[in-house]
Each structure stands twice: as structure tokens, then as C-alpha cells.
């Protein structure tokens, strides 16, 4: 596998793609690539990006998305474009597909549809893992993950990025070859002779006693311990609901809800999107009735420590499957999906996440990624092959090599 990374902050999509392409081609010895993974800020013209890419490298497979912040080995850009060019080794296979008109479909069905389409592309080839990009503004996504796993397999490793633009409220674009979808999800399945490693962590710790969700439907939590759900936060923060509403974005990141998942050591985090007049909490992701929850607390330090752990976990998973004498020879790259909430918390320290990942993976490992509004990943490391969960506030490091 040969990998090249290029980035640009030019506002003209034509110039930006050309500039990034020129840099990325150096990484693959100016040869033709099989796959291009593109992440670009939401203010670009995506048709121009795709046309320019196809013009510069005809026939190349393209997958990617827009994002509120673009991550690359060169740092974080609110406006910019990062482009990975990948030249697959012999025996390595990829297949990409999509499911559109999501708003008109049940999440479960959309997941199943994408799963089916992805599976159909890899006949008789051992499949390794999958990457998914999903328009996060389409609503609840736990059922989508469930549908996906119904088709790909309950323990099939998968990393997904849910994308919205909370800063400028720009439309999210999902890129697949020459199509730029908005009401859709796109995915890619990887198979054959390749290695991968996934690391997912958040860094928040439980605080206070457990509470029980006594009434909820989907992502709307009406009561906790038979009290209006908002009361939990009002009690803990010692503040009025009106004040809570004002500070919600801040509070939601600092003190998300932690879901106690039976059989798992880590808590699943849920941000609160809004507070209803009846005191119900609208969360980013479902919380089933009867779930035991905790108020979670995190700091910049625990957040960055989790980043280091996620990167280390991905490296361990990746190298664990490779014979020691080949470890240095294998070329690899990393996809990083970090929650926008983490960016909000870390602010000016956000670049440190990338520095930590680079230091753990090695400076020569190209990194590309995007800030997300939700993440799909197993709760434990991929080797466990555990159930897929919809996360908030995690950083996900996926290393791919071969």
C-alpha cells in the first residue's frame, strides 16, 4: 500500500484540490491511486471538488465528507481540504456504496440497505472492517448502526462518523465517486490482505450516584428517577432551568450523561441537545427506558489522556496482528474522527489531540479526519469484536495498513 497526504486552505476548490493532489501524489511516487479519501470544510463547492479530482486522476474511487473542522497531519483547519491518495497492494480490496433519501426511511432500514450493498461488493473475499459517513442532522442513529450490523455481522468491526456543522449550520455533504449526497450515508468495506487497528475513548468519569431513566422514547428522556429529567442537572448544578438552557451547550460537553452498558466497563456518553418545556431532555442518541445513568465529568487533561489511550489502543490492535519482523515495513495511514464537543472543550488546545496521535503513531503515518457530531464504534477494542455503539464525545483512531 502506498499513501500520500495533501492539504490546502485555498478557498477556490479547483486550486485547493490541485494543491492537495500535488502534495499527495508525491507520497505515492506520482503513480495513479486506487482510492481517494477527501475531507473538506462545508463552504466548498463539492461538485467542483469531485470534478477536479476525477479530471486529475480519472477512474479513481472517491469517498469522503464535509466537516465542521478538518483534521490532518498538518493540524486542524476550519476552512480547508485534506486528501489521502491510496494505492492498494495486491490482495487488498475495497467496495463503497451509499443509501440515500434517509429522511424518508427508517434508520434501521437505511442501515440494512447500506449493509447489503456493501456486502454485495466483496464476494468470497474475507471482509475486514467498514467505514461509514452519515449525515448527523438526519436524527437518531443507534437504529441505523443496528441495521448495519444486522447485515455485516454483529461483531463486524466498523467505525462511523456522523457529520453536521454546528458552527455555521452548513449542509453536510457525503461524497462517493462523482456524487455529493446530502440526505444520505456512504460507506466503504475493506477486505483481503490488510491490517487495521481501532481505538475509541472519551475520557469522562462517572460522578455521583447512579440514576434510572424512568421514561424515555428514542432520544427524548422525559423522566429520571420519576422526576422531570432536567431536574437531575438542576440538582447537580444548583441552578434554575432557565439558566441551564442558556448554558446548555457548555454544560452538555462538560457533564454529559453516562450510560451504564451491561457487560461493558466504559460508559457511553450522551450530550444533551436541548431542554423541552416539560423538563424532558433531548439527547444526541437514544437512551432506553430503565437505563442506569450517571453524570459524567471530564477535564482537558482527561480528554487528552483518552486521546493518547485511543491512539495506543489502535496501534496495539494494528501491530498485534502483524509478525514482528514486518512491523516496520508495513505502510499505514490513520483516519481520525473526533467529536466536535471535544474541540469545544479543548478549544485552543485542540491541536494537542493531533500532536498526541502523531507522536503515538509516528510522524511518518499520514493522518486525515474530520470533526463529528457522533461516532460509531465498538465500546471496547476491535479485537474483542464487541457490539457497535453510537457514541458522543469520543475520539476514534483507525489505522489501516498493509
Amino acid at each position, binding site marked *: 500500500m502506498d499513501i500520500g497526504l495533501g492539504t490546502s486552505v485555498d478557498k477556490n476548490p479547483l486550486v485547493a484540490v490541485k494543491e492537495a493532489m500535488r502534495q499527495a501524489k508525491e507520497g505515492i511516487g506520482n503513480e495513479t491511486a486506487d482510492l481517494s479519501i477527501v475531507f473538506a470544510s462545508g463552504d466548498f463547492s463539492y461538485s467542483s471538488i469531485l470534478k477536479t479530482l476525477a479530471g486529475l486522476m480519472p477512474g479513481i474511487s472517491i469517498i469522503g465528507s464535509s466537516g465542521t473542522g478538518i483534521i490532518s497531519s498538518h493540524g486542524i483547519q476550519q476552512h480547508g481540504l485534506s486528501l489521502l491518495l491510496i494505492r492498494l497492494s495486491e490482495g487488498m480490496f475495497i467496495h463503497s456504496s451509499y443509501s440515500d433519501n434517509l429522511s424518508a426511511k427508517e434508520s434501521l432500514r437505511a442501515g440494512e440497505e447500506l449493509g447489503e450493498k456493501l456486502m454485495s461488493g466483496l464476494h468470497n473475499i474475507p471482509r475486514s472492517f467498514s467505514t461509514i459517513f452519515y449525515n448527523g442532522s438526519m436524527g437518531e442513529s443507534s437504529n441505523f448502526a443496528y441495521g448495519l450490523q444486522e447485515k455485516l455481522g454483529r461483531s463486524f468491526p466498523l467505525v462511523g462518523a456522523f457529520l453536521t456543522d454546528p*458552527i455555521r449550520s452548513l449542509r453536510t455533504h457525503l461524497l462517493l465517486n462523482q456524487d455529493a449526497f446530502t440526505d444520505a450515508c456512504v460507506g466503504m468495506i475493506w477486505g483481503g490482505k490488510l491490517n487495521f487497528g481501532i481505538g475509541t475513548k472519551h475520557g469522562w468519569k462517572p*460522578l*455521583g450516584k447512579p440514576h434510572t431513566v424512568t421514561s424515555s422514547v428514542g432520544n427524548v428522556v422525559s423522566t429520571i428517577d420519576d422526576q422531570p429529567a432536567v431536574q437531575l442537572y438542576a*440538582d447537580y*448544578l444548583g441552578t434554575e432551568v432557565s439558566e441551564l438552557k442558556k448554558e446548555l*451547550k457548555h454544560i452538555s460537553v*462538560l*457533564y454529559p450523561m453516562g450510560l451504564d452498558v451491561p457487560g461493558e466497563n466504559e460508559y457511553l456518553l450522551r450530550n444533551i441537545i436541548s431542554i423541552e418545556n416539560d423538563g424532558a431532555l433531548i439527547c444526541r442518541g437514544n437512551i432506553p427506558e430503565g437505563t442506569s445513568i450517571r453524570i459524567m465529568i471530564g477535564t482537558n487533561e482527561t480528554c487528552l489522556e483518552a486521546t493518547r489511550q485511543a491512539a495506543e489502543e489502535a496501534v496495539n490492535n494494528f501491530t498485534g496482528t502483524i509478525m514482528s519482523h514486518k512491523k516496520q515495513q508495513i505502510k499505514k495511514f490513520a483516519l481520525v474522527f473526533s467529536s466536535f464537543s471535544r474541540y*469545544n472543550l479543548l478549544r485552543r488546545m485542540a491541536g494537542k489531540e493531533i500532536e498526541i496521535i502523531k507522536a503515538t503513531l509516528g510522524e511518518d503515518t499520514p493522518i486525515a479526519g474530520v470533526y463529528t457530531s457522533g461516532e460509531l464504534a465498538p465500546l471496547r477494542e476491535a479485537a474483542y469484536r464487541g457490539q457497535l455503539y453510537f457514541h458522543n464525545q469520543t475520539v476514534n483512531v483507525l489505522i489501516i495498513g498493509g
Partner: protein
Amino acid sequence: MFAFLAIFFLFAALYLGFLLTSKSDKIKQKQVEIDKLKRTVDEMDEQAKLVVRTDIELNKTQEELDKKIIGLYVLQKISRSISTSLEERWIYKSIEMETIKELGFEKSLAFSFDKKEGGFVTKINLGYPENELEKIETFLGKNQEFWLNFITREKTFSSFSLPEGLAVREEINGIFKISAFVISPILAKEGNKGFLLVGTESLDVPITEGDEELITILANQLGQSLENARLFEKTWRAQQELEKRVEERTHELTQALEEKEKISKRKSDFVSSVAHELRAPLTSIKGYAAILSSGKLGILPEDARLRIEKLNKHSDELVQLVNDLLDIARIESGKVTMRQEPAGLKKIIEETIDLLSVQCKEKQIELSSHLGEEIPNVLVDLIQIKRVFINLINNAIRFTPKNGQINVFVHKIIGGIQIDISDTGCGIPADALEKIFNEFYRVDNAINMQVKGTGLGLALVKNIIEAHKGKTWVKSKLGEGSTFSFTLPHV
């Protein structure tokens, strides 16, 4: 048997009762423990609440502190940049996108109200495409009064100080395409006033009091720097005006000097040609007078002879006058080049003293020279310099009464030799000192009334010395004598 059974059941009942009591105690004890545990959990939960409340306060403080530190750092950076700029456009250019982003914003505009144009002029545009800026400029034009009033009030306002839902706030959000902002007036003391806007599209950036303070400081800094630039420009312009005037005056003076030189040359040429024209008839007059006086044409009656002798004498004086005039004219016009060669001053002075010793003896004047040790040779035209010494010493003899003293001092100065000829004569009035080297100027005193002179001697001295790149001057006090000084270059 019955009694045995009754005793057995009694003991069994007692035992069961004991067991029941014991169990019940244990349950009660467990319940106490559970209650205790529950209380502990509740207490810990209360502590957790305290932790959260403290944590959120700490977070807010930390965030505000971080913002202030970054803000101060950015302000210091901008201050350094704008305080070194003395041009308005460079002051505005110091505010860059990177700076604005460091302050947590991604858009910025600055407008200045141009009194002459009667409208706002864009000075900073960061983050707005041309078409959006045009719309904003139109909006400002339509609402000029509002913005001018805002500037006059000298008060910053922002998404923090304006209540949510207020029409102005919503209008600003809409026109400037931002969801949070700070707007602060730029108040130059006398120059054009304006305002600075920073804003963000992000819905996640809460504006705080700290932001308001920071942008106010930045706008004040801008205003102060613009004022400094204006004052600098004013001073610079005044200086330029002064330089221009000096240049004009210098040009006028140069022209006047050139004109004066032209006139002087014309005068010299005129004097020279007149002198030449006078010379020929004078020579004839003098020749005939000499022949008549010699008696070769017959013995003249005594009266006629005396008159012819007078005619001869006056002709000599007229020839001398014409020669002096010719010399001055030639030197002034540069026609006479000094044939400079090394010469010893001692010899020149001794020869002059020797030449004039008879006149000194007649008036019993003590004429002496004082040459310092190691006086180097001078670079002079020997004939002309002798004329200088003769002229000056002759003058000194003429104006020094009997038993007087004349001293010639020679000493080294930087770059040459200075010669002072001092006498114990009648001295020169102060008002005549400046004019004494002018042609035909004669001091109005008793001696000059008796002794004839052309008034060209000192002018000739001055011209000869200047032709040697030297200087001539005089110091004198009435009744106390005079000192004539001049310098000469040494070898």
C-alpha cells in the same frame, strides 16, 4: 408421652422464637447498615453535586482567564505592530485574520467616517466577500445617523450587553452574517472617527464581558495610533513645507548670487576696459609732461614748469589707480591665476620692512616682526603677497603717529599660517570695520583728509588673499590702534 411432646414443642417454640428474634435483629442490623450505606451514597452524591458546582465555576473562570491571557497576548502583538506604524493604512493592516482568529472570531470590519465624503469608508475587511461588503456598506449608508450616534456615545456594545431578541441585535446578526459580535468605536482625537466590529458565525461562542473589554482596548489602541499617525503626518507635512520653502529661498539666493556675480563681472569688465582705455592717453600725457619737464623742448617759465611737474605727479597717481583697478578686476574675474610656490615668510617680511624702513625712520616708528619657531613655508604667489604686506604695512605707517609701533606677528593655525599686522595708530571706527575692505571706501578721518589714497588698497589685499583661499579681517578700536590679519595656506 404427651408431656414429653409438650415440653419438646415448648422448647422448639422457644428456640424458634429465639431464632426469629435473632434473625429479626440481623435484618434490623442489615437495614441499619443499608440505611447507613444509602446515607453515605446520598452524602457522596451531595459531595458530587458540590464538585460539579465548583467544577463549573472553575471552568468558567479558567475559560475567561484563558481568553484574557490570549487576548492580552494578541493585544500586545497588535500594539507592537501598530505603534511602529505611522501610516493609517499600515495601522489598519496590522489587524490580520490570524489575530482575529486568536481572539476567537473569524470576521472583522472597520469603518471610518469620512467627513468630506459624508459617509463610512471600509478600512478593514476580514472574512467578507465583496458582494456581502457592498450590502453592509449600503446598510451603513442608510443608517448613518444610528452609527454616528453610537460612535458619539463612545460605548462598546456586543451580543453580551444587548439582550437576545432585541431588534438591533437581530439586524446586526442578519446584515453582518454573524451570530455573536462586539462593536467598539474608534475614537481618534481630531481625525476621522469610526468603529471596529469582530464577529463569529459560530453558535457556540458566548461573548463575555472580557471580550467587550478586549475589543474596547483594541479599538482605543487603534484610535490612539491613528491620532499619532495624523500628528506625525501633520509634522511631516510642515517639515516638507519648510524644506520646500528653504529650497525656494536657496534657489532665489543662488539666482541672486549668480546675478550679482554677473553684475560684478560686468563691472570688472567695464573697469578693466575703461582702465585699458585710460592707460594709453595717460601714457601719452605722462610722456609729454616728462618731455616738457625735462626742458628738451625749451626752458619753461617757472610757473609752467611747476604745473607740468604737478601734471606729471598726478599722472603717476592716475597710472597707479588704473593699475590697481586693473589688478582687482583681473583677480575678481579670475583672469589672474596665482602662481603659487613655496616661499619663506621670514624673507618676504624682511624685504618689506627693508623697503619701508625709510618711511618708518621719517616718522620714528618701530617696525618689528615676530615669527614663531618652525614656521613652515607658505604656498603663495610671491609678487602678489609682497603687495599685500606692502599695502598693509604702508597703511599702518600712514595711520600711526610718530614714535608709534608696528608689529608683524606670524603663527601657525590649523590648516595654515596667520599673519597679524598691528599698529598703535588712530584706529578705525566700529561702523567702518565692515566696509573697510570695499572698493573706494575710505574712512572718514583727519589723516585721510590729508593723505591721498585710491581706496583700492585693502580691496586688492582682500582679493589677493581670497585668491589664495585665505581670509582677511580687521580688529580695531578708536585711539588704540588696529590689527589687520590674514591667513595663508602652508606647504
